[in-house]
C-alpha cells in the first residue's frame, strides 16, 4: 500500500511540475502555431494529471466517486479524453511540419543550383575550345 501511495504521489508531482514548465515556456512564446501546439500538449497532460490525482486520492483516502451507469472507475474517462487530445496534438504536429518543413523546396533549389553550375561549366568549356581553335 505504501509503495502504491509513494508511486501515485510521485506521479502527481511530476505531472504538476510538467504543467508548470509548459506554462513557463508558453509565456515566453508569441502567438502562433508553436504556442497552439503547446496548448494542445498542456491539455493532454492536464487530463493525465487529473486521472493521476483522482487515483491517488482514491488510494490514500479510499474515496470512491461513482458515476452511475458510467464505469466502475470514472477517472478512466480522463484517459480517454487525453488520447483524444493526443490525436489533436498529433494532427497539429502534421500541420506544423507542412507549414515549417522546407525540405522539398531545399531539394528543388539544390537541383537549380546544380543545373546552373553545369550550365556555367559547359559555357566555360565552350569558350575555352573556341579560344583554342583561334
Amino acid at each position, binding site marked *: 500500500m505504501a509503495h502504491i501511495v509513494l508511486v501515485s504521489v510521485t506521479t502527481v508531482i511530476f505531472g504538476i511540475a510538467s504543467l508548470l514548465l509548459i506554462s513557463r515556456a508558453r509565456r515566453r512564446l508569441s502567438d502562433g502555431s508553436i*504556442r497552439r501546439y503547446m496548448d494542445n500538449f498542456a491539455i493532454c497532460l492536464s487530463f493525465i494529471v487529473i486521472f493521476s490525482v483522482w487515483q491517488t486520492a482514491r488510494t490514500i483516502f479510499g474515496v470512491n466517486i461513482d458515476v452511475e451507469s458510467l464505469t466502475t472507475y470514472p477517472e478512466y474517462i480522463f484517459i480517454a479524453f487525453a488520447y483524444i487530445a493526443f490525436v489533436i496534438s498529433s494532427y497539429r504536429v502534421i500541420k506544423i511540419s507542412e*507549414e515549417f518543413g522546407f525540405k522539398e523546396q531545399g531539394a528543388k*533549389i539544390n537541383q*537549380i*543550383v546544380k543545373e546552373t553550375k553545369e550550365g556555367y561549366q559547359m559555357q566555360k568549356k565552350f569558350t575555352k575550345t573556341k579560344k583554342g581553335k583561334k
Partner: protein
Amino acid sequence: MLELKETLKKEIKTLRDYIILITVDAKDYQKVSTSIIKFLVSEQGLPGVYVTLNKPYEVVKRNLASSSIDHRLMIFIDATSRSGDIKKVENCLYIGSPEKLSDLSVAMDQAVKALPTNEKFLIFDSLNTLSIFNKPSTVARFIHFLTGKIREWKVKGIIITLEKETEPSLLDELTQFSDYRIDMGGES
C-alpha cells in the same frame, strides 16, 4: 547602387559567413534591397532565405522578375500580410503577422537548414517594421537571437533597416553584433 556593390565586394569577398547591417534611406530602399539580392543570387549564385516584413511575396517576386533575378533560388518568409493564418504557397511561407516572432524564428531556422549548399544567405527586410508591431524590448531580444543564429547557421546575414525609423539604441546594439555596417543614402 554601384557604391553598395563595390562596398559589398570589397568588405566581404573573402568571408564565408558574416553579418552586415545596411541602413538605408526610405527613397533608396527598393533599389538597395534589389541590388543586394542581385549581388548574392545573380553574381555569387547563392541560394538563400528572404524574410520580408515590408512587401508581400507577390510584390517582391514581381520586382525580382523585372530585375531578371532568379527567385527560384530563394525561400521566402512573408510576415507582412495580417491574415492571421499560416499558409505555404510555392517557395513562400506566409506567417500571417509580424508579431508572431516565435513562428518567424522557427520558419527561418527550418528554411536555412533546408538549403543544401555550404554557402547561403539570409536577408532580413526590415528591422524597423518589426519595431512597429513589437515592443522595443522584444525587438532587442529578437535581434540578439537573430544575430546569434546567423553565426550558428554560418550564413551570410544581411539585415536591412531604415536609419531614421530605427531607435538609435537598437541600431547601436545591432552595429555591435554586426561585422560591418553600410550606410546607404540619407543625410550621412
